[in-house]
C-alpha cells in the first residue's frame, strides 16, 4: 500500500508544472525509485507502471458507486483493440468492463476547461428505453447545441465521427469553456442530478485538484483525478491513431514564411519516437517522449498562451482570445520590435544573424515617437511574435539538448492561430538549418481531456 501510494504521489507531482523545475520522468527512473523497489514490477517498467494510477482512479471512484456490481466490473483492466471483430464472448466481456454512460473526459486548465463527450450512436431501442432521463437530457443537450450558456462552445469541426470505443460506436464531441465558469458547470451538474448516474468524472489539469472539493460538496460528485501529462500523451497517441474522420491528424507547414506558397500538409506520424511535445496552454510544458510510457518533462516556461492573452488585454484592451488574434493578424510587429537591421543596418553577418531577426522584442517602444506611431494591432502582433519566438527558442534548445528532431506543438494557444504555427514552423526550420520539424495536430488543446476519457474507459 505504502509502496504504490508513494509512487503515486511521485507520479502526480510530475503533473502540474509549467514553470516547474524540469524533472526526470523516464519509466526507468520510476522503476528505480524507492517505492517501486519495494513493489517489484514484473515485466519491466514500461508494461506496468501505469497500474498504480488505475488503482488510484478506481479507489477514487469507489465511494461514488459503492459496492455495486458496476464498481466491481470497473476494476478490471480494459482493452480496446479488435472490439468490433471480436467473438461474442469478447463482446460480452467488453460490455462488462465498460463504465456506465455518460462518458466524459475533463481537462481543467488555467484558462480553459476542455470537455470531451462520447455520444453513443448505436443505442438500441431497448437501451434507449432503459436510459434514465437525466442521461438522455445530457446527451440531447450536448449534441443538439453548439454553444452552452454564453461561454461554452462545441468545436463542431473537430467532432470525430463513427468512433468505436469499448465496443460502442459513436461520435466524440469537443467542448470548451473558460475555467472561471467552472462553478456554473458544477452547479449544472448538481441541477441535472449527475450524481444519480453513478458516473465517474475523470478529470485532469490543475482544476481537477482545485475544484475537487466543490465537485464533492456542491455536485456530490467524486472526481477521479488524473495526471495531466499522462493524459496528454495518451490523448495524442490515441487521437493520432484514429485520424481525423479519414484525414490525417498531424500536419506541418511547407514554405511557412511564404504567404503564397505556404501549404498545410498532412504528416504521417508513423515513427512518433522520440518526440518533443510542446504543450502551450496558459503556460508551457515541454516533454520528451521516448515511448508510450517513457517520457520526461524537460522544462516549462511561464510565457505561454496566458501571457499572450494577458499582455494583449493590458496593451490593447481586447477582451477575448479571438479578438486578440484578430488584431494581431492586422498588425505589424516590426514597428514595435527592434530588428537586427535596425541596429546593424542589415544582417549581422559575423554571427549569422539575419537583418529581419528580432534583436529586442518591443525594443522600439522606448522611443516616444515610435510609441505614438504604433497601433493596438501592431502591439498585439508583437506580443504574439514575442511569445511565439520565445517558445520556439526554448523548444529548439530542448530538442538539441535531448537530441530529438520532431517537435509537436499542441495546446489551445495554437487554436485558430496560424500566425503562431507558421512562425514556429519557420523559426524551427531556419534556426536548426532544416534539422528540426515542427508538427501540429488538429485537436490542439483537447488531448488532456481525451486522455482522461481513455482512462475512464481503461484504454491503454
Amino acid at each position, binding site marked *: 500500500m505504502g509502496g504504490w501510494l508513494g509512487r503515486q504521489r511521485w507520479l502526480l*507531482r510530475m503533473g502540474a508544472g509549467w514553470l516547474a523545475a524540469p524533472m526526470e520522468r523516464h519509466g526507468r527512473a520510476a522503476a528505480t525509485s524507492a517505492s517501486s523497489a519495494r513493489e517489484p514490477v514484473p515485466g519491466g517498467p514500461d508494461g506496468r507502471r501505469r497500474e498504480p494510477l488505475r488503482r488510484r482512479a478506481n479507489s477514487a471512484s469507489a465511494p461514488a458507486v459503492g459496492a455495486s456490481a458496476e464498481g466491481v466490473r470497473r476494476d478490471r483492466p480494459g482493452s480496446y483493440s479488435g472490439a468490433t471483430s471480436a467473438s461474442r464472448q469478447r463482446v460480452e466481456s467488453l460490455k462488462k468492463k465498460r463504465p456506465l454512460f455518460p462518458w466524459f473526459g475533463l481537462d481543467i486548465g488555467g484558462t480553459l476547461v476542455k470537455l470531451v463527450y462520447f455520444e453513443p450512436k448505436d443505442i438500441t431501442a431497448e437501451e434507449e428505453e432503459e436510459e434514465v432521463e437525466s442521461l438522455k437530457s445530457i446527451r440531447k443537450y450536448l449534441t443538439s447545441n453548439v454553444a452552452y450558456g454564453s461561454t461554452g462552445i462545441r468545436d463542431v469541426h473537430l467532432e470525430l465521427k463513427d468512433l468505436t470505443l469499448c465496443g460502442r460506436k459513436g461520435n466524440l464531441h469537443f467542448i470548451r469553456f473558460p475555467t472561471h465558469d467552472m462553478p456554473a458547470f458544477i452547479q449544472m451538474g448538481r441541477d441535472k442530478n449527475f450524481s444519480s448516474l453513478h458516473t465517474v468524472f475523470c478529470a485532469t489539469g490543475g482544476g481537477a485538484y482545485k475544484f475537487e472539493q466543490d465537485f464533492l460538496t456542491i455536485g456530490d460528485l467524486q472526481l477521479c483525478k488524473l495526471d495531466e501529462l499522462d493524459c496528454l500523451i495518451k490523448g495524442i497517441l490515441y487521437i493520432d491513431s484514429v485520424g481525423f474522420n479519414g484525414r490525417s491528424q498531424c500536419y506541418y507547414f511547407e514554405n511557412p514564411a511564404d504567404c503564397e506558397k505556404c501549404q498545410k500538409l498532412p504528416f504521417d506520424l508513423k515513427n512518433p519516437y522520440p518526440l518533443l511535445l510542446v504543450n502551450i496552454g496558459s503556460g508551457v510544458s515541454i516533454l520528451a517522449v521516448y515511448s508510450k510510457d517513457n517520457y520526461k518533462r524537460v522544462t516549462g516556461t511561464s510565457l505561454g498562451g496566458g501571457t499572450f492573452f*494577458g499582455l494583449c488585454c493590458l496593451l490593447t484592451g481586447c477582451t477575448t482570445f479571438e479578438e486578440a488574434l484578430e488584431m494581431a493578424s492586422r498588425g505589424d510587429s516590426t514597428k514595435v520590435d527592434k530588428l537586427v537591421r535596425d541596429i546593424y543596418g542589415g544582417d549581422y553577418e559575423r554571427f549569422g544573424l539575419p537583418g529581419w531577426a528580432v534583436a529586442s522584442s518591443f525594443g522600439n517602444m522606448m522611443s516616444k515617437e515610435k510609441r505614438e506611431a504604433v497601433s493596438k494591432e501592431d502591439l498585439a502582433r508583437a506580443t504574439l511574435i514575442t511569445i511565439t519566438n520565445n517558445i520556439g527558442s526554448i523548444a529548439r534548445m*530542448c530538442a538539441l539538448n535531448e537530441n530529438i528532431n520532431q517537435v509537436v506543438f499542441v495546446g489551445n494557444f495554437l487554436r485558430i492561430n496560424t500566425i503562431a504555427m507558421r512562425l514556429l514552423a519557420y523559426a524551427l526550420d531556419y534556426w536548426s538549418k532544416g534539422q528540426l520539424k515542427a508538427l501540429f495536430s488538429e485537436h490542439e488543446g483537447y488531448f488532456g481531456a481525451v486522455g482522461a476519457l481513455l482512462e475512464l474507459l481503461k484504454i491503454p
Partner: protein
Amino acid sequence: MAECGASGSGSSGDSLDKSITLPPDEIFRNLENAKRFAIDIGGSLTKLAYYSTVQHKVAKVRSFDHSGKDTEQDHEPPYEISVQEEVTARLHFVKFENTYIEACLDFIKDHLVNTETKVIQATGGGAYKFKDLIEEKLQLKVDKEDVMTCLIKGCNFVLKNIPHEAFVYQKDSDPEFRFQTNHPNIFPYLLVNIGSGVSIVKKFDELLHLASRGQHTNVDMLVQDIYGGAHETLGLSGNLIASSFGKSATADQEFSKEDMAKSLLHMISNDIGQLACLYARLHCLDRVYFGGFFIRGHPVTMRTITYSINFFSKGEVQALFLRHEGYLGAIGAFLKGAEQDNPNQYSWGENYAGSSGLMSSSPELCPTQRARSGTFDLLEMDRLERPLVNLPLLLDPSSYVPDTVDLTDDALARKYWLTCFEEALDGVVKRAVASQPGSVDAAERAEKFRQKYWNKLQTLRHQPFAYGTLTVRSLLDTREHCLNEFNFPDPYSKVKQKDNGVALKCFQRVVSALDALDWEERQLALVKGLLAGNVFDWGAKAVSDVLESDPQFGFEEAKKKLQERPWLVDSYGKWLQRLKGPPHKCALIFADNSGVDVILGVFPFVRELLSRGTEVILACNSGPALNDVTYSESLIVAERIAAMDPVIHSALREERLLLVQTGSSSPCLDLSRLDKGLAVLVREHGADLVVIEGMGRAVHTNYHAALCCESLKLAVIKNSWLAERLGGQLFSVIFKYEVPAE
C-alpha cells in the same frame, strides 16, 4: 561629480546636454598624454577608453662608487637614493551617460595634446549613430569594431587581470556579493549580455524601482491559482509562476503599475535564466557571466537572474556577475585597436586610487540618487612591468585564496581594520611629508592623499564589496596606490636606507656569534633571529611607536620582545628534525622588511641554508611598500654582505643564491600573481622549500595557503587585536612548518 545642468529631467535620451561642467582632473585624467582611444556607445551609456602614460616619481637606490678607499665611514649611508621620474602605462576607462557625450568630446578635444592618434575604435549600437559627431569633434577616424568580439575580448581581459572580478549574488546574506577567485583557466564560459538599446537610464531605473515595490502574484497566474492552494503532494511550490500575466487576461480588473512591473521583471529574468541554462547545458558549461544594461549592478535583476539560473539548472550552473561588466565593450575595442602593442602580453592591475568602486545599488535607493552617483564612473588599470603568473608550487591554483580573512564577510574584523587604518592615517601623512623634505608641495599633496584615502575608507565602510573582497591586503594596497597617486612613491626610503646601514654594520658580529654556537643552538638562534628581525615593521603601530620613541631599539631588544617558546604556533621541533635530514634542494624565501629583518634575520638564515648545500632564491618586492625591502635594495644589501662574507660572496658568484623580484608592490603576497621570471627560476631550480616571512605575507595572506612542497610561515604578531583573535598576545610568534601530505 558633474551634474546635468540645463535640460529638464525625463528628457529624451537623444537630446544632448551641452551645458555641463566637468571636473576635468577627476574624470578624464592624464588626457594630455593620451594616445589611442576607443569608445563603446550603448543605448544609454558611453564608455571611453584611452591609453595614457603616467609620470611617476620613483625612488631609485644606487650603490656608491666604491673605488675610493674611505667607504666605511660611520656616518655614511650604505647607498644613495635619488628620486627619478618614471613613465608607466595606464589604461583609463570612463563611463558616462550618452547625454554628456558631446560635452565630453569637446572636453577631450580641448585637452588632447597628442596628435599621433588618428583613429578611434568604436563599438556598441550607438557607434553608428554618433559616428559623425565623433569624427567631427575629435578629428579622428571612427573604426567600427564588432560588438560581440569586443565584449569577449573585454571579458577575457578583466577575468585575467582583475582577481576579484566575478561575484555571485546571494540574496539575504551579508554581504550579498560573494567574489570568486578567478580560476587559473578562465575558459570555457558563457557570457550573457542583456543590453539592447535601453536609451534612458533614469526611466529604466525608475521601472526597476517600481518593480521592487510590486507584487507579481496579482498579475501572474501561479501554480496554486490553477491547482488550488499549495499542494505539498505535487512537489511543486504553489508560488511558482504557471503563466506570466495570466491573471491580466480580464477586462474587469485594474492592475497597479508596480505589480505589472514586477511581473515583467520576473518574466524577463526567468526567461533569460532559462535560455542561458539551456545554452550552458548544450555546451556543457557551468559558469555563466551576466552583463549588460539590464544588470548594471542592480540587486533586483541580479537576484531574479540568480534565482532563475538556480531553479532551471537545479544548482548546476552558477550565475556570475562582473564588477566591470559595463566596460567590457570599451576594453575589448581598445584591445582590438592596440593589437600591434600586444597588450595581452602584459599583466595589468586595477588601480584602486583611480577607480570608482562598485557603486551601492540597494533597491531602496531612489533612482535619482543612483543616477547621480553613477553619472561618471572610472576604471584605471596600470600596466605592470612584468607578466604575472601562479607560483608553480601552489597545491591547487584554482582553490588558492591569498587572503586569510574576508573582511566583507567578517563585520567585526572589518570594523577593526577600517578604524585601524583610519587611525594610522595621520602617521602615514606625516611620514609622507617627512620623506620629501625638499619638496614645496609635499604637505599639500599629502593632504590630498589623506583626503583620498579617507574617502576610500568611508566608501568601504558602506560598501565593503566596492573593490572586490575587502581584505587587509586590499586596504594596504589601496593606501599604496593613493600614495603613488600623489607622488609619494616611497615614504620609507630614508628610513630603510638608515636601517639598512645600521644593520649592515652589525652583520659580521651577528654571524660570528651564530658561528660560535653548536649546530642545534644555532638553528634555534637563526629562527629567533628571523623572528626578531620581523619585529622591525613600520607598518605595525605597536612597533612604529617603539621605533619612533626609542632610536636605540635594536636587534637584541627585539629578541627580548619575542614570546618565549612554546610559541603561539610552534612546529619548531618538527623543523629541527627536518634539518637533521638531507638538505633541501632549493629554498624560495619571501623577505619582508628592510634593515634588521633582511640583513640580520634573513641573510644569516640564507647563509646557513647555503652552507647545507641548499640553493636559495630570495624574492623581494618589485616596488616599494612601507619599509619592505625592495628588489633593488636587496641587490645592494647582498652586494655589501658579499663583500664581508665569503659564503654569500661565492653563492652569489656561483648563482646558488639568486635575487629575484616578486612583481608586486604590496606588503602582502598573492602567490597567484608573481613575476614570471620568479616562476621560471622556481621551476628550473626545483624549489622544495618555501619560506614566507612577516605578518603581511604569512598571516594576513597565505596563512592557509597549501603548497605542494615544504613550507615555513613565520611571523611576529605585532597587532594586539589580531594576536587576541589568534588566541595570543602582542609579539606572539607564529612558526608554522608544513609538509604536504603524501
